[in-house]
């Protein structure tokens, strides 16, 4: 039998059942007299089922028991120490038996929810005897305080299925990406088709991948996840790769504080993402797509799953799509509570069943991505732009926005504005105009955190800067994920900064020294400074901590972990401004 030593702990029959339901192959399988598949070969085949397996065990027992983990590890032929290392990486997995069987309430304590009294909501829940986890941003910033309830033996719930539809401003400029979101809910295929759905796929099939990529390059579309890499160039690079297997990945691990656009897209227009990913597959010669959805987005995952089933039933996915020679399938992976898994290479590791630690780049995903194969990885918002470009043409697409930032952008407005919600606007809109559309600031504007925790602070001096990639960059700001968190004068900005620093301290994966320890030292120093004016020694140390994290961290998390704090220092927002 196997050369790995597994656990002696005995699994429960329920644990056996859920693991067996997930993994059809035995740990060791004799395929012929001379051909036995087991050990490392089996691990390579099945290891990507580790994350779904851990979810299944957590849901069944309310925690991951030694017996359950041992059984899962053995079925997958994954070393049990490594399986434990993976399980302990994620927030949503518990490796110790909880005191009570009751649900676990994850309540957001990041800035926007914190100023909307998440603390008293938490206190109330605790008084009632509930288990509460103080959670990082849950991507429901338009309805604070946000919560996500994890339940044993059942469907965990975010509050998204909820009542409040994200606000869309109807009278505003071109509604492109959000045109099917709001009044119409395109969660069934028929409605989606009636509103222009699947026209772009027909076009892509008829005109071929080269045409699609040409259009994308002409459109000037750049990635909306934060890095703004030209999408057409990315697709072309993967299309040019001569590999047997290539992948399309939708990075829907939306966890940047203040960001909820991808959640809204997946909940309200799921077929659009499926269609655009299929077009990517056709264009670049990929036959398999993956959607990695953050673990707390249960409604989004459910609706995406339903969309995949429908699309497959109508041959919009599968083999010979709509009678064409193209094949494409999509699989969903749920994250399990780790901001770092939004970093594309961490996301690959997470899907593959490893700890979500980022990989060194180069090699870039277009050369060696998921399972070491050439991979297109884009944000859902980026994918939706592709449909827009194909349906209405490059000229129409470029009629909005600026030469260097063509098209529209989704902005997530939250905090002290009258109407928090998701807004679509042309690139080039100013913060001032955007705030007006959201009904204005409630109270006196103190500061705006642009681009999420990894972004930077702006204040009243920045209100007239056009929101484009080039203009924000010139001002030392970033659009990042499109998060616009507004803080009026009622907010204690030192507390906001401390929370941001805590966020990075909690979310650092721990792989490299600059980020693992730098985020801790930065947080400690901010606590030490508190509401006082920082000394010159404080400033120097903050700056040097920022320098090493920015210069020497492996990935974007560490490289931007000091950005908001440094921008606050530069704007004089840190410490007591009066002193």
């Amino acid at each position, binding site marked *: 039998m196997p050369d790995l030593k597994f656990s002696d702990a005995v699994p429960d029959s329920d644990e056996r059942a859920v693991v067996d339901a997930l993994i059809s192959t035995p740990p060791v399988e004799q395929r012929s007299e001379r051909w036995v598949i087991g050990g490392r070969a089996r691990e390579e085949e099945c290891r990507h089922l580790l994350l779904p397996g851990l979810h299944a065990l957590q849901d069944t027992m309310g925690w991951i028991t030694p017996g359950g983990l041992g059984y899962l590890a053995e079925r997958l032929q994954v070393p049990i120490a490594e*399986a434990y290392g993976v399980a302990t990486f994620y927030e949503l997995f518990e490796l110790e038996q909880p005191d009570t069987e009751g649900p676990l309430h994850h309540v957001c304590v990041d800035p926007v929810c914190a100023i909307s009294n998440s603390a008293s909501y938490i206190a109330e829940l605790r008084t009632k005897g509930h288990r509460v986890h103080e959670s990082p941003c849950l991507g429901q910033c338009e309805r604070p305080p946000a919560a996500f309830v994890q339940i044993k033996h059942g469907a965990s719930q975010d509050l998204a299925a909820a009542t409040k539809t994200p606000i869309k401003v109807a009278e505003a400029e071109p509604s492109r990406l959000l045109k099917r979101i709001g009044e119409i809910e395109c969660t069934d295929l028929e409605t989606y088709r009636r509103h222009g759905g699947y026209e772009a796929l027909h076009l892509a099939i008829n005109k071929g991948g080269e045409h699609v990529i040409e259009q994308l390059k002409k459109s000037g579309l750049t990635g909306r996840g934060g890095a703004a890499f030209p999408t057409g160039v990315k697709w072309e690079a993967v299309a040019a790769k001569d590999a047997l297997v290539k992948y399309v990945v939708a990075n829907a691990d939306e966890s940047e504080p203040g960001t909820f656009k991808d959640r809204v897209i997946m909940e309200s227009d799921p077929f659009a993402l499926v269609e655009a990913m299929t077009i990517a597959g056709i264009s670049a010669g990929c036959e398999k797509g993956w959607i990695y959805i953050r673990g707390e987005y249960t409604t989004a995952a459910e609706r995406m799953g339903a969309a995949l089933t429908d699309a497959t039933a109508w041959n919009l996915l599968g083999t010979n799509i709509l009678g064409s020679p193209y094949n494409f399938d999509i699989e969903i992976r749920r994250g399990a509570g780790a901001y770092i898994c939004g970093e594309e290479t961490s996301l690959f590791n997470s899907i593959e069943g490893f700890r979500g630690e980022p990989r060194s780049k180069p090699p870039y995903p277009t050369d060696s991505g998921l399972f070491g194969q050439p991979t297109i990885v884009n944000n859902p918002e980026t994918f939706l732009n592709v449909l827009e470009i194909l349906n209405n043409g490059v000229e129409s697409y470029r009629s909005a926005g600026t030469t260097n930032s063509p098209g529209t952008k989704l902005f997530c407005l939250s905090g002290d504005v009258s109407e928090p919600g998701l807004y679509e606007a042309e690139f080039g809109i100013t913060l001032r105009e955007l705030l007006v559309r959201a009904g204005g600031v409630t109270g006196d504007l103190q500061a705006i955190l642009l681009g999420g925790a990894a972004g930077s602070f702006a204040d009243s001096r920045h209100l007239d800067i056009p929101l484009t990639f080039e203009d924000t960059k010139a001002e030392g700001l970033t659009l990042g994920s499109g998060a616009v968190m507004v803080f009026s004068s009622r907010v204690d900005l030192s507390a906001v900064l401390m929370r941001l620093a805590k966020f990075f*301290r909690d979310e*650092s994966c721990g792989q490299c020294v*600059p980020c693992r320890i730098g985020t801790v030292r930065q947080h400690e120093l901010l606590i030490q400074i508190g509401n006082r004016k920082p000394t010159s020694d404080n400033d120097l140390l903050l700056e*040097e901590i920022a320098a090493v994290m920015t210069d020497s961290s*492996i990935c974007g998390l560490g490289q931007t972990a000091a950005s908001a704090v440094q921008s606050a220092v530069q704007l004089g927002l840190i410490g007591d401004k009066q002193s």
Partner: protein
Amino acid sequence: MTVTRSTEVTFSLNGQQTTVAAGTTILEAAQETGVEIPTLCWASNLTPVNACRLCVVEMEGSRALVPACSRECEPNAVINTDSERVALSRKMVLEFLDTTNDLTQSSELQTLIELYGADASRYSDPVRSEDPVKVEDDLFVRAYDRCVLCYKCVEACGDDAQFTFAISMAGRGFETRVSTEFETPLPESACVYCGNCVGVCPTNALQFKAEFDLRQTPDWDPESQTSTDTICSYCGVGCTLEVHTQDNEIFKVTSPSDHSVTAGHLCVKGRFGWQYVQPPTRRPPTNH
């Protein structure tokens, strides 16, 4: 179509035109030309994980610094291993480690801390990595307050040497630690006691029980210690052993990492099976 593939790469290293074979890392190129770059998580017998970031260098055109241990030399690259930016990053990495871990048993890190002027006293009350020493057997101990999470032991236990996979990184962020499943004690884990993790540990977080015991006594005296090369007598492979002794008592056995047979790695017998050369009566009593 003829494809010409360049087998050599020419680039600038600290202003010197340097030519190396394609695929050579910046660190290897530096070592070939006598340029010093400090390392911690890198080892010649392990796959680079570039986690410590001590070896970062400046590469023109790259927004961030790049890790010399794993980045391959690129044609026409301009690399500076010794800029102010590089020195600042290294100093900070050393300060971070010094404020977190007990580095007293790593003379190399002590030298670097001195060299780069790292000053741990700038931090007031930093949270440290605290963990009582794990003594679970007579062979080696684990003092994780010294552990800098360089991944070397995990790699040596896994597919860089032993293929036992008894340990893994667990947890996340500052709480990351090297662990067996559910912190199971080593004797009940998959560990086969090859000691290759001990062999690669750069900070003495993993050390022989004999060394640990000796260090607890006032007799510990590095000056009087000797290392004797010999060949393991257990099997026909013929691994080279370096037997470390003080007062004629063995406290540690290693093998050179550049050795063609062992690449520094041994098995449980070569690593720990030396008691027979010392009469048991001479061994200090143990309570564990």
